[in-house]
């Protein structure tokens, strides 16, 4: 795919030598879903992100690449490390991480190292390690980096973090599309979706939008009740418990008498 793009790009460059100007290209984007409703039988969702590159002038030179990121709401977390003390394994050291998105996916049209420069990555915080921010590790911990690595490792194993190099399909230097899998265990909130257009490892255009992830229906009702009317919610839970217990008991007595 990349080979084809490169060849196409070369062809275009040979035919039309165009001057490269700032904002010569713009991103026009579409989403298969603007919002995601978490219902009782929510099993995760595949979200299709597609779009086109709008140009006023002719196609500029340089390799074209597209990176798409989707980030869930950030919450501060603490990463703990276990150590053996007096024969048992206990959490001994903890490193606070100020900002760790509950979900983070990067899809790119090629390997990140080859299509994105280090400075641009730092500026826009695109790659997974840069999406989390760990500052203020206690001075007693020398290897704070291993804590952030562990955070990424654990979240990647649980499919909350992912990097799909070659996940974006670019056609004719104009159209692009990618599909990002949102797992079932989604946290509610605004999912910031960013699209970067790159030429020669430099970001030339970007587009930001949000996908709204919300609980609906029964999920919404119970969540609101639990937080807004905790006493009623608690009594409701207890009533259900007692009713369930009684119903099963009564049911079994009838069945047993007849049986």
């Amino acid at each position: 795919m990349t080979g084809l793009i490169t060849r196409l790009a070369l062809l275009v460059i040979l035919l039309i030598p165009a001057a490269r100007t700032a904002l010569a290209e713009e991103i026009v984007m579409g989403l298969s879903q603007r919002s995601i409703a978490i219902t009782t039988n929510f099993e995760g969702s595949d979200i299709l992100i597609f779009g086109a590159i709008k140009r006023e002038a002719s196609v500029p030179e340089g390799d074209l690449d597209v990176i798409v990121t989707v980030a869930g709401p950030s919450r501060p977390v603490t990463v703990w490390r276990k150590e053996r003390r007096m024969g048992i394994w206990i959490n001994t050291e903890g490193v606070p991480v100020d900002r760790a998105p509950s979900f983070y996916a990067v899809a790119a049209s090629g390997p990140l190292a080859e299509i994105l420069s280090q400075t641009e990555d730092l500026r826009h915080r695109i790659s997974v390690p840069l999406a989390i921010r760990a500052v203020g590790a206690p001075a007693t911990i020398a290897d704070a980096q291993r804590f952030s690595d562990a955070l990424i490792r654990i979240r990647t194993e649980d499919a909350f973090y992912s990097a799909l190099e070659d996940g974006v399909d670019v056609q004719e230097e104009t159209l692009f599309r990618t599909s990002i899998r949102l797992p079932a265990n989604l946290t509610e909130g605004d999912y910031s979706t960013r699209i970067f257009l790159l030429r020669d490892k430099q970001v030339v255009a970007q587009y930001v939008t949000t996908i709204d992830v919300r609980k609906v229906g029964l999920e919404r009702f119970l969540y609101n009740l639990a937080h807004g009317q905790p006493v009623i919610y608690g009594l409701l839970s207890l009533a259900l418990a007692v009713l369930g217990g009684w119903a099963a008991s009564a049911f079994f007595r009838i069945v047993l008498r007849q049986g």
Partner: protein
Amino acid sequence: MQIYLPIAEVSVNAYLLLGLGGIVGVLSGLFGVGGGFLMTPLLFFIGIPPAVAVATGTNQIVASSFSGVLAHLRRKTVDLRMGVVLLAGGMVGAGIGIIVFNYLKSLGQVDLLVTLFYVVFLGIIGALMFVESLTAIRRARKARRAGGTGIAAKRRQRNWVHVLPFKMRFRTSGLYISVVPPVLIGVSVGILTAIMGVGGGFIMVPAMIYLLGMPTKVVIGTSLFQIIFVTAFTTMLHAVTNQTVDVVLAVLLLLGGVIGAQFGARIGVKLKAEQLRILLAVLVLAVCFKLALDLLLMPSELYSITAAGDM
């Protein structure tokens, strides 16, 4: 069938939850334990956040205990008077327990302490019950071989429990003892309920048998009776202070649980008291062993993530 839990914010298999509730329910009806000491670790294992697992577990215990106690009430194997005395102690204990729990939380090692509590208590009680039941079974066998009727010798020795003041008659249990030991048992179980997030039946049942000398059949119904109220109180506390009771999770667990409890109560009638005790002892020891292994063996992942401020 996957189902999304609104408070826990995770998606889990509904049948798995029903099955889990069912197994714990059978144990609840069989042994008179709420099953929390099994349910809570099992919920952690399938990925429910610990805070939600503990709070929802208590709500589920209310259901299975209520179902179990109805079966026992019909068979008149609940000592209501003893239950109320234990309950009075239990409420005081739960209050103390919550204060202790919050203190441990401020120290930052609450998980470890809870696990250690489990290992120590389950280990001691499991071992004691196992040895005692084995001796009882052996004694019964010997009596039978010697041409006896097969009924184990009645254990009704007098100990320190019988010399304390404030004596009260517990007709259902056939006891005339001081209220001080039952109240103290209630208090200590209440403390453990709040700290370990369990009903406390696995501690109360042996305490009632070995310390108070109550008949095994009455012990189970009575402990269930006490557990209902203490866990209901705990559920309310969690719902109001932390909003961690997941009603969808609770309903699924209790559907399995109440059915299981009915089966358990019926199986329990067919088993001999000694067999019942030895089964419970094995179960308690198994859970203790598993938890101890987790502490002793090197974990495959040394790192763990918690929400900031938790732990």
